[in-house]
C-alpha cells in the first residue's frame, strides 16, 4: 500500500474523455478487447451515449477511472486491491473471491465478472446473478501485481498485457482516432486538454454537431 504522501509527490495516471470529440466509434472498446484478449461478453471499456439519436448527443468512453479514493478498495472484504506508485488501481485475482461488492460500489460499472457465468444452461455470459468468476477490470494496461518484465503467460491470461512496463500508454487512448480519449499522467493530459480547449473554445458552437452539420452563420450554405 502506498502512503498518501507518496501519491501526492508522484505521477497519477488518469484517463480523460473529451466528450466534444468522441464519435462513438467504439475503437477503444475493440482495441482493449483485442490487446488483452478479454473473454466474450466482458468489456473493460464501454462507450456510453447520452440523448442517443438526438441532435447534440454526447458520447463518453468509460472504464475504471483509477480513482484517487477508490470505493472498490474501500469495500473489498478480502483486501485484494492496491494502488501502484503512480496511482493505478489494480487487484490480485488470486485473492479475489468474486463477491461483487466492488461492482456495487463502483460508480462507473467498471468491475466485470467473467469465468463461470454463461457456462450453465440458460445463462448468459453477462448475467450478474449467476456464479461469478474473479473480478476483471481495466488495468490501465499495467498488468497485475508483479511481472514488470511483461513476460509471463499466466500474468497475461489473468490481467492482459502490461504496456506501462514497455513505456507505452493504454491502447484504448493510443488507438483513439479523434484523440478524444487521453491517457497518461494527470498533469500532462490535463495540459493537453487545456491547450485544446484554448485553441478551439468550448461548447457545441465550437466543436461537435454544429461544426459538422452547419453553424448558424453557415445555415443554408449546404442546401
Amino acid at each position, binding site marked *: *500500500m502506498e502512503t498518501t504522501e507518496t501519491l501526492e509527490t508522484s*505521477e497519477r495516471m488518469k484517463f480523460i474523455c473529451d466528450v466534444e470529440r468522441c464519435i462513438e466509434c467504439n475503437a477503444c472498446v475493440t482495441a482493449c478487447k483485442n490487446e488483452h484478449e478479454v473473454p466474450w461478453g466482458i468489456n473493460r471499456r464501454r462507450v456510453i451515449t447520452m440523448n442517443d439519436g438526438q441532435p447534440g448527443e454526447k458520447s463518453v468512453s468509460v472504464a475504471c477511472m483509477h480513482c484517487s479514493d477508490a470505493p472498490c*478498495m*474501500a469495500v*473489498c472484504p*478480502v*483486501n*485484494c*486491491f*492496491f494502488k*501502484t*506508485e*503512480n496511482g493505478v488501481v*489494480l*487487484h*490480485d485475482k*488470486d*485473492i479475489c473471491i468474486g463477491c461483487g461488492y466492488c461492482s456495487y460500489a463502483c460508480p462507473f460499472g467498471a468491475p466485470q465478472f467473467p469465468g463461470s457465468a454463461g457456462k450453465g444452461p440458460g445463462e448468459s455470459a453477462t448475467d450478474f446473478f449467476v456464479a461469478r468468476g474473479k473480478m476483471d477490470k481495466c488495468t490501465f494496461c*499495467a498488468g497485475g*501485481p*508483479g*511481472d*514488470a*518484465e*511483461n513476460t509471463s503467460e499466466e500474468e497475461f491470461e489473468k490481467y492482459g498485457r*502490461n504496456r*506501462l*512496463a*514497455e*513505456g*507505452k*500508454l493504454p491502447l484504448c*487512448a*493510443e488507438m483513439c482516432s479523434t*484523440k478524444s480519449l*487521453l*491517457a*497518461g*499522467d494527470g498533469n*500532462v*493530459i490535463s495540459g*493537453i486538454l487545456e*491547450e*485544446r480547449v484554448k*485553441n478551439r473554445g468550448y461548447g457545441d458552437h465550437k466543436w461537435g454537431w454544429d461544426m459538422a452539420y452547419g453553424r448558424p452563420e453557415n445555415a443554408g450554405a449546404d442546401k
Partner: protein
Amino acid sequence: MRAALTLWLLACILTGCGEYKQSVAYQDGTYQGKTDQRHWDNVRFQHDKATWASAINARAQRQNEYRRTGD
C-alpha cells in the same frame, strides 16, 4: 407532580444531547495480495523511475495534435 413532570421533560430534552456519531469510520484495509513490481523495474528502464516517467510523458504528448503538427 409538577416537579416530576419538569424533570421528565428535561430528561427527554437532554437525551438529544447524548447523540453520537452513527456513521461508520472507515479504516483502510491492508493489501493481502502478492507484492507488485513497479513498471520501471525491468531491463528496459534500468530500474530508473525518471527514465520511465520521461518515456511515458513523451508518449503522452503524442496525443497532443497541436504539438504533433506544429500548428
